[in-house]
């Protein structure tokens, strides 16, 4: 135990003395959050749209106003015929055209049915569908208000609705994904170079000739970085909440505990890489390239896992980020409690234990 404390103190010294790396370690997540949080957004704001109003009544005017007032659109063109719409699209002047049919108000109030057509530029598929979705929801919300006011009878209104993220805002989906990515890459990198660095610098040659046991050397490496990792978790959560406007629905304590477990898991993975490699370069390469792709593909935040072929779905089960991403969404966005995430938590805890054991086992007690 005394030996462990000695190692622990030494590792803290290493981390604290390396000011430059420390600045990078704290600064990088901030940068990545800003970069990914804003740049990797599928939200569409202030899209230019054109209105083709064939009715020109109170309701169409009101709807046009509402569309313009929403932060997603600004109405820049009023056109008279559908052919003009074609032209606007070709010139790239608008992303969508909203067409109100003739006698819009009368049809709605007398026949209880009217039609509005939304034509979106789907050259960029995602943007197109998002724009169309936004426009539809603006109109739908107006329709709902009408219904409440006038209590129109016998109207079966079928509506598909997105829960938790009705505007399909990007933050609730991207921020947990970005968090997962940053944490796994950063934390595994921290420890991946830690042990191999001692091999490279030659300090390993001396410290091996001592009574220190492998687990002491391995575990002591991880603990200062656990603090660094948790510091990063704090920074990321703060940024998610303040800058990116992500709601915090669940228990903060549970969230932090899950983050802590995931940081430990990533650190253990890094340690395993570190005990298995012989140069810092190799270790960095493995932790960056080797982890980036599976984390991105198999965590479910870029590509839905349900749509993947069966073999890939099976592979995704051994990718730790999948579980953490699901936990983050459940706790942060949906505000669910521990009883909903205990399975994922258990899997992550098991993975951590296995990885750590493997890391200690593969620690080389000799030089070659």
């Amino acid at each position, binding site marked *: 135990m*005394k*030996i462990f*404390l*000695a*190692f622990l*103190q*030494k590792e803290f*010294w*290493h981390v604290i*003395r*390396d000011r430059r790396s420390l600045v990078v370690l704290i600064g990088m997540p901030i940068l990545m959050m800003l970069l990914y949080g804003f740049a990797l957004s599928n939200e569409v704001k202030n899209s230019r749209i054109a209105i083709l109003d064939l009715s020109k009544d109170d309701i169409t005017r009101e709807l046009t106003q509402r569309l313009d007032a929403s932060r997603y659109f600004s109405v820049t063109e009023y056109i008279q015929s559908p052919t003009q719409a074609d032209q606007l699209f070709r010139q790239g002047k608008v992303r969508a055209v909203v067409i109100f049919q003739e006698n819009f108000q009368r049809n709605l109030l007398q026949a209880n049915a009217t039609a509005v057509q939304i034509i979106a530029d789907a050259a960029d598929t995602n943007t197109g569908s998002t724009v169309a979705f936004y426009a539809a929801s603006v109109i739908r919300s107006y329709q709902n208000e009408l219904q409440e006011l006038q209590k129109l009878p016998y109207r079966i209104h079928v509506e598909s609705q997105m829960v938790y993220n009705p505007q399909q805002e990007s933050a609730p989906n991207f921020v947990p994904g970005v968090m997962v990515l940053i944490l796994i890459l950063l934390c595994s990198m921290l420890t991946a170079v830690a042990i191999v660095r001692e091999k490279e*610098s*030659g*300090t*390993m*040659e*001396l*410290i*091996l*000739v*001592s*009574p*220190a046991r492998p687990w002491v050397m391995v575990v002591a490496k991880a603990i200062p970085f656990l603090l660094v990792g948790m510091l990063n978790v704090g920074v990321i959560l703060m940024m998610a909440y303040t800058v990116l406007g992500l709601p915090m629905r669940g228990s903060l304590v549970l969230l932090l505990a899950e983050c802590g477990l995931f940081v430990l898991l990533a650190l253990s993975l890094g340690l395993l890489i570190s005990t298995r490699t012989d140069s810092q370069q190799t270790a960095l390469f493995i932790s960056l390239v080797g982890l980036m792709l599976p984390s991105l593909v198999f965590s479910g935040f870029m590509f839905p896992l349900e749509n993947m072929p069966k073999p890939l779905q099976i592979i995704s089960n051994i990718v730790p980020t999948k579980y953490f991403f699901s936990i983050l969404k459940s706790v942060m966005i949906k505000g669910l409690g521990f009883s909903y995430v205990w399975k994922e938590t258990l899997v992550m805890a098991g993975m951590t234990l296995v990885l750590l054991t493997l890391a200690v086992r593969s620690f080389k*007690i*000799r*030089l*070659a």
Partner: protein
Amino acid sequence: MISIQNISKSFNKDSVTALRNINIEVERGELFGLIGPDGAGKTTLFRILATLLLADEGRAEIGGRDVVRDYKAIRRTIGYMPGRFALYQDLSIWENLQFYASVFGTTVAENYERIKPIYSQIEPFKDRRAGQLSGGMKQKLALSCALVHKPDILLLDEPTTGVDPVSRKEFWDILQLLRGQGLTIIVSTPYMDEARLCDRIALLQKGQILEQNTPDGIVSGHSEPLFSVRGPNMFALLQAVRLWPGTYSCFAFGDSHHAYLRPGAKPADLKDFLHQKGFENVAVEAIQPDIEDIFMHLLPA
């Protein structure tokens, strides 16, 4: 105290032979020197003794313990100083020392008397980072750390390489002091002048022991006459001496050349030969060989 039997080791799938059939016995309290140039296999031998490498063949014991089977016990009891500075450069002198004391379950205060002769020399700078120390101070710190757990046996791999002459002398004074306290020490060095300071030495070249004896024993065992040759244009002179059929070997040695002659060859004839070749004022004198001369003499031509 230390017994090395038939140790052989090669690297890169047997393509590079680092050690070939090494046999060494070191007695308790002895200061034993491994003398040889870079690449002779000294570091490999140290690593095998320090339980860091496994030999391909042969076995070694330290204090009656096998270096393979009982590696844990050996690691507890020896003091090792690798050839490359292996302390933490971002930690201060004091922090390094304290860390190594704690790792061996002891404290600096407990063993202060043992390390005092060396440590007191660097103690005024104890808050300085190890990375900022001079070569001599680094080696003193490394020795302090190797001694802080009171080992019986010291393995010192080239402790004076890259160290200034004054610090080298101080270092050897300390080694003599430690031997006086009963420690068994194996030290390696590429400097032949340091061989004299050991109780016994082994001359190592290309993984093989050329000779193993006390320094005096090695010198007196080689009675072949040795001559120093001195004159103008030393480089051309070296070539000329080597050209003479009566020369067995000749090598540059500081400000003169040292030459072994073949049996029956006379130094006066060498002088005449050099005169014919156009070298004026050449002095040829008989001298006492030193370890380095014998080492050069033993090298396969």
